[in-house]
């Protein structure tokens, strides 16, 4: 083991190995802390995703019901025409924020809700049911943007968590046990050398006494 690690049994090597073990242990503890923090973050994001998903699905269902109602009152062609006339620009500000070295998107969304005058379709040729349907879809869009942000964050955290887990495992199951074993081997070898030396000295002393 000691030779496999490239160490020779001497006191200097013991000091070096102890230093390396300390570093590995410190790295392991900190990476474990990082993993714990990432898990906290992931659980938080997961809770958000569940919440946004439920709300978005509910809102989309309401919006589709309103759209069906709109088709029934205004007719499919008129509704489709009004949809084509609607302005499609939205104000979304996407910046980054850093979470333990991971760059994740931070979305600032003022909301998609507009009033009937700013949507872009003609008020003369459309009914108020179209306004209702548009309003419901705008609400749903806001929730979908938040859901998308949360999902992107979750994905980034999972990737980092995977990396951190691999490093913690490498330290915990490979490097630290190897270093401990090498240290144990050297200490045992040094003890053995000390015992050999002691026996040799005793033997020399006995021989010298015999000669006298």
């Amino acid at each position, binding site marked *: 083991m000691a030779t496999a690690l490239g160490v020779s049994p001497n006191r200097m090597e013991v000091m070096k190995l102890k230093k390396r073990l300390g570093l590995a242990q410190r790295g392991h503890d*900190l990476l*474990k*802390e990082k993993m*714990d923090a990432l898990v906290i*973050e992931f659980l*938080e994001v997961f809770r958000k995703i569940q919440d946004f998903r439920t709300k978005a699905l509910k809102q989309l269902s309401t919006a589709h019901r309103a759209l069906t109602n709109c088709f029934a009152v205004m007719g499919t062609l008129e509704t489709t025409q009004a949809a084509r006339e609607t302005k499609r620009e939205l104000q979304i500000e996407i910046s980054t924020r*850093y979470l333990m*070295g991971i760059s994740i998107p931070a979305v600032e969304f003022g909301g998609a809700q507009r009033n009937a005058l700013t949507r872009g379709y003609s008020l003369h040729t459309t009914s108020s049911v179209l306004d209702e349907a548009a309003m419901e879809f705008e609400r749903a869009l806001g929730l979908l943007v938040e859901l998308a942000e949360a999902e992107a964050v979750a994905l980034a955290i999972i990737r980092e968590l995977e990396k951190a887990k691999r490093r913690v495992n490498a330290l915990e199951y490979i490097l630290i046990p190897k270093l401990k074993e090498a240290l144990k081997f050297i200490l045992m070898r040094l003890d053995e050398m000390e015992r050999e030396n002691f026996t040799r000295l005793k033997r020399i002393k006995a021989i010298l006494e015999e000669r006298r």
Partner: protein
Amino acid sequence: MNADRLIKLELARLNMHLPEKRISLKEALSSAKPQVRTREGGVHSFKRRELELLAELLPEADWEKLQLPIFIALEPKLGRGAARVSGEAEARVAGRLLGKEATGELRIYRPEVALLRRKLSTTTQYLFVW
């Protein structure tokens, strides 16, 4: 690259997400784009609604004292899952959010860290101490 160098690199990378320089709450509130530059060259932005929440929690005279982002220090010697919020204004704000008394330094534990991060996701950051 040997294992020791990899560990050292990993330890050095742990705090690369921290800002080069923190900004005060007053500065952040008056800025059109409240953000700080990170050590690795990126930009970390603060959400305005979090800044407004912090402004509600502190009297206006203390806005200058509160440095952002607030650091949640994770230190293995504190024990697994324990963390520390240092700084008078920072500890006071965190204490108010968590319903705890704080003077100068606040010791918090995993569920409280989660709660704090939930309420202040962009205005707090983890700091690894060894």
